[in-house]
């Protein structure tokens, strides 16, 4: 296997503004010198990498501290993560799926219970983020971040009060071709369901079809279906409106002052991403060490500071600036959370399948006006080519005869 350059930037450490202290250095040196390595599979831009000046290189610090090598790779959607795990080829030791995916994985035995003796730092996790619906016993997961879904929009072009903004902005014809939309069915359907007033976890085929109809209506004015491309597109001002996760939205806002982010008052989805260990993991203890390391206050703070999501980690929360802690975007008041937000749960296979096929159908549907022509023209072209070929052959044969 490949070697990562060992001397991971001595200078960086000196200039690092954030410094690292861990509670129990001995715990982390158990595997030193054993040449272990763990495979961490995470969302893109979901950890502090030290690329920006003055931030911690979390994986680098972990390697330095424990001597365990970290193979770090990224995925873009829960479904991609699921596909990789389900496919069975890749062996990961730490993954960070979202709520509904966690319950699906628990059901399919894709992740294994944790040994919380090895994760003493679990104690930092706030009470209201323990024993969540997706993992009622809290046997499988350690929450990493949470957040809400809201709308990012360009204030220079959209002159609306924050209060007035709701999900229907995404269906507003005035902003045709300036709207981005989630490129995964669960989040996209959730928005449509919120519009329709359905439950976010509905399994009723009728309701799903109604939501899909909504989405199809929207397709005409959608510029593109994106996930992480949102950073780039909104940052560069290529689009005016996009729904996205609160934490990422704040990151984007840092780059482009014209943007604003609101959580629509009519309600939203509250998501929780949590660290788990797949059943196929071969380095469970090392993985648990990694999870514990992620829950070190300094590390948790470094991460949360970098990725801007909301943290369920009490110590990290306390270290945040006053301004952030008060922010209604990152930490909405508990009433709103209780009344207006819903956490995804895993849907039944039938509902999943239904949603999946409705989604593909919606995405592959043509704009009505072009659809009429392409197929016939194509067929006619095929026929012409065929006829041409046959005639050519015929002529050739005839020539050969006389």
């Amino acid at each position, binding site marked *: 296997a490949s070697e990562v350059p060992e001397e991971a930037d001595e200078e960086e450490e000196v200039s690092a503004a954030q410094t690292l202290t861990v509670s129990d250095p001995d715990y982390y040196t158990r595997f030193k010198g054993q040449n272990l390595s763990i495979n961490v599979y995470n969302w893109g831009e979901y950890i502090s990498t030290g690329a920006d000046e003055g931030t911690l290189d979390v994986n680098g610090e972990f390697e330095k501290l424990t001597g365990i090598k970290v193979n770090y790779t990224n995925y873009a*959607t829960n*479904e*991609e993560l*699921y*596909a*990789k795990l*389900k*496919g069975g080829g890749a062996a990961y030791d730490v993954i960070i799926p979202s709520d509904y995916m966690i319950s699906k994985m628990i059901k399919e035995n894709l992740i294994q219970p944790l040994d919380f003796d090895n994760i003493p730092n679990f104690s930092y996790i706030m009470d209201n983020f323990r024993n969540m619906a997706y993992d009622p016993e809290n046997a499988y997961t350690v929450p990493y971040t949470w957040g809400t879904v809201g709308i990012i929009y360009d204030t220079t072009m959209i002159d609306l009060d924050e209060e007035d903004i709701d999900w229907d902005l995404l269906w507003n014809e005035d902003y045709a*071709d*300036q709207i981005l939309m989630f*490129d*995964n*069915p669960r989040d996209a359907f959730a928005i449509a369901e919120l519009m329709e007033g359905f439950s976010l976890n509905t399994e009723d085929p009728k309701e799903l079809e109604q939501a899909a109809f909504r989405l199809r209506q929207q*397709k005409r004015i*959608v*510029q*593109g*279906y*994106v996930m992480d491309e949102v950073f*780039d*597109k909104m940052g*560069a*001002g*290529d*689009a005016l409106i996009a729904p996205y996760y609160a934490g990422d939205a704040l990151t984007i806002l840092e780059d482009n002052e014209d943007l604003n982010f609101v959580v629509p008052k009519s309600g939203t989805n509250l998501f929780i991403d949590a660290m788990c260990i797949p059943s196929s993991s071969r380095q469970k203890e090392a993985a648990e060490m990694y999870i514990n390391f992620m829950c070190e206050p300094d590390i948790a703070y470094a991460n949360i500071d970098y990725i801007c999501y909301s943290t369920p980690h009490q110590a990290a929360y306390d270290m945040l600036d006053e301004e952030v802690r008060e922010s209604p975007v990152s930490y909405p008041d508990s009433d709103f959370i209780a009344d207006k937000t819903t956490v995804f749960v895993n849907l039944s296979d039938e509902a999943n399948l239904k949603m*999946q096929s409705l*989604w*593909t*159908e919606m*995405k*592959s*549907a*043509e704009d009505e006006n072009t*659809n009429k022509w*392409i*197929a016939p*023209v*194509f067929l006619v*072209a095929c026929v012409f*080519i*065929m006829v041409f*070929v046959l005639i*050519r*052959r015929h002529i050739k044969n005839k020539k050969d005869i006389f």
Partner: protein
Amino acid sequence: MKLKYFSAPYLVWMVVFILVPLLMIAYFAFTNDEGGLTIKYISDVGQYANIFVRSIWLALIATVICLVVAYPVAFILSRMDKHRQGTMLMIVMLPMWMNFLLRTYAWMTLLGNNGIINHLFGLIGLGPFKLINTSGAVVLGMVYNYLPFMILPLYSVMEKIDGSLFEAASDLGCSSGKTLWRVVVPLSMPGITSGVTMVFVPAISTFIISRMLGGGSNLLIGDLIEMQFLGNAYNPHLGAAISLVLMVIILVIMTVMNQFDPDDQVLM
């Protein structure tokens, strides 16, 4: 001669890593999760007919544009001085050596609503136009990425055409237009067919270009397959079925193409 046996390791490799995987596709396409035989997935492919049609259509347009653009380039190249040809060819081919993701990304920055092209239009008081996330952008991406695949085979065929044939044609009464139609085009037919396949096949199966320049709203066959294996719609059986159909389509198209090839010579 025992030289024959030199190829034994490769033959094993070939069977295990070329032949068997293709059979795996067929196997997956015709079985379900429990391993039972089914044609459900193959028949399911039917519901994506419009994606197939669109993919073929866009790939076809891209191929035709490539052909039209590349033909004069190849011709001009092939008639240059021998020593300048090499340099010029290198200059034309050089972009192909850049990672194609980066090149496609470059177009993203050019075509964006706030991109350079719209910026320039803005300077003269036009636009902004919707350039990115359209079928046109996807076709542009295909043309840009695969143009060299068209130029190269055309060039290598044309370069071999003896210049005296042009003189002979003109001697026998052809004006330059007639020479082009009656001599150059028929003689470059093998280059045209191999160029067309070399552009068409990657174009029809791309998923990067449609994702980066088509904004995810212009699904192509490639996207569909990718979705089944690593994307939102995890379903390897359906993915295998789509791949199988794609292979058959390409096979049919290549057979048709070969009809145009006078001597069945396929150059790579």
